[in-house]
């Protein structure tokens, strides 16, 4: 039987192209991050290698009172006589030190014995001492004494509980 031009064969309808178009996945738009990650990791490695990690720094507080000319001084207020701790150079090159105490005290050999002496001189230090914690301690280093030994002497006084510790400046 002859069919007219407008009539469709049912098999043609089943194999139409729109059905194939539905099978395709939608086009995904993505950023290629590979090279960026490469660069970022290189930067990270560089900074990790180049950064110098150090131990945290800690401090001693030192008050430097202004000794202006003509400062009014209360004549009835007697200052405590400061305890003078002398730090001297021993040997050549300032590689070793010698400690001294100004006054009728037994000599001290090292910073540990300086600490023990200062501790025992305190009122509650069980050594029969009469110094309060605010008793002035003046560290007098030699010109060629290493800064390390100056700090060690300072540390001994602070560690013993004294709060009024100063360094004597070298008069110019």
């Amino acid at each position: 039987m002859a069919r007219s031009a407008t009539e469709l064969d049912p098999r043609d309808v089943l194999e139409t192209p729109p059905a194939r178009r539905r099978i395709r996945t939608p086009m995904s738009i993505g950023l290629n991050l590979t090279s960026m990650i490469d660069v970022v990791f290189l930067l990270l490695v560089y900074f990790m290698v180049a950064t110098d990690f150090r131990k945290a720094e800690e401090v001693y507080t030192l008050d430097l009172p202004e000794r202006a000319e003509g400062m009014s001084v209360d004549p009835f207020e007697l200052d405590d006589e400061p305890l003078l701790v002398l730090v001297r150079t021993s040997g050549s090159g300032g590689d070793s030190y010698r400690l001294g105490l100004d006054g009728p005290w037994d000599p001290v050999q090292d910073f540990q014995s300086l600490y023990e002496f200062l501790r025992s001189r305190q009122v509650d230090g069980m050594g029969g001492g009469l110094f309060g914690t605010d008793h002035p301690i003046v560290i007098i280093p030699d010109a060629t004494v290493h800064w390390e030994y100056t700090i060690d002497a300072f540390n001994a006084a602070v560690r013993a509980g004294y709060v009024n510790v100063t360094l004597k400046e070298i008069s110019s």
Partner: protein
Amino acid sequence: MSTIFQRGPARPQANITSMIDVVFLLIVFFVLVSQIVDLESVDMELPEPEHPATALPEEEPRAVLNVLPGDDGECDGYRLAGRDYPVTSDGLGDLRAALVVLYQDIPGLRVNLRADRATDYRWVSPVLQVVRQAAGLSGTGLASARLNLVVQGGDR
């Protein structure tokens, strides 16, 4: 044809967004830390006393004054806020003037003094003098200059 095959084969992908976040944070951290260390800390061996009775530095405005170490306990100058001052009376005068300006700008300023353990005391003593004089000259009514002597911290 099944539904699975219609959508195509599964393509597993790692979600790298959070990794990129963390890596960028690390980079920013290292960049900032490197700059701070380079600006303020001159490379030197700080004193490291036994049984230190030190304190951690407080969160106060501070200026870092470095005594630049030389050979055999000598000193190559002083460095404050990235500028070097020679060990001469003129250099110390300039250092004093710079400190006076800092004290006037920031009342209650702390000066952190960093010196090498092998530097002779004769090079540190002028700094104490200069800081004390600068605090007095600043006209801010400071009764005393507060100085922080910086040492190497121990293990806490």
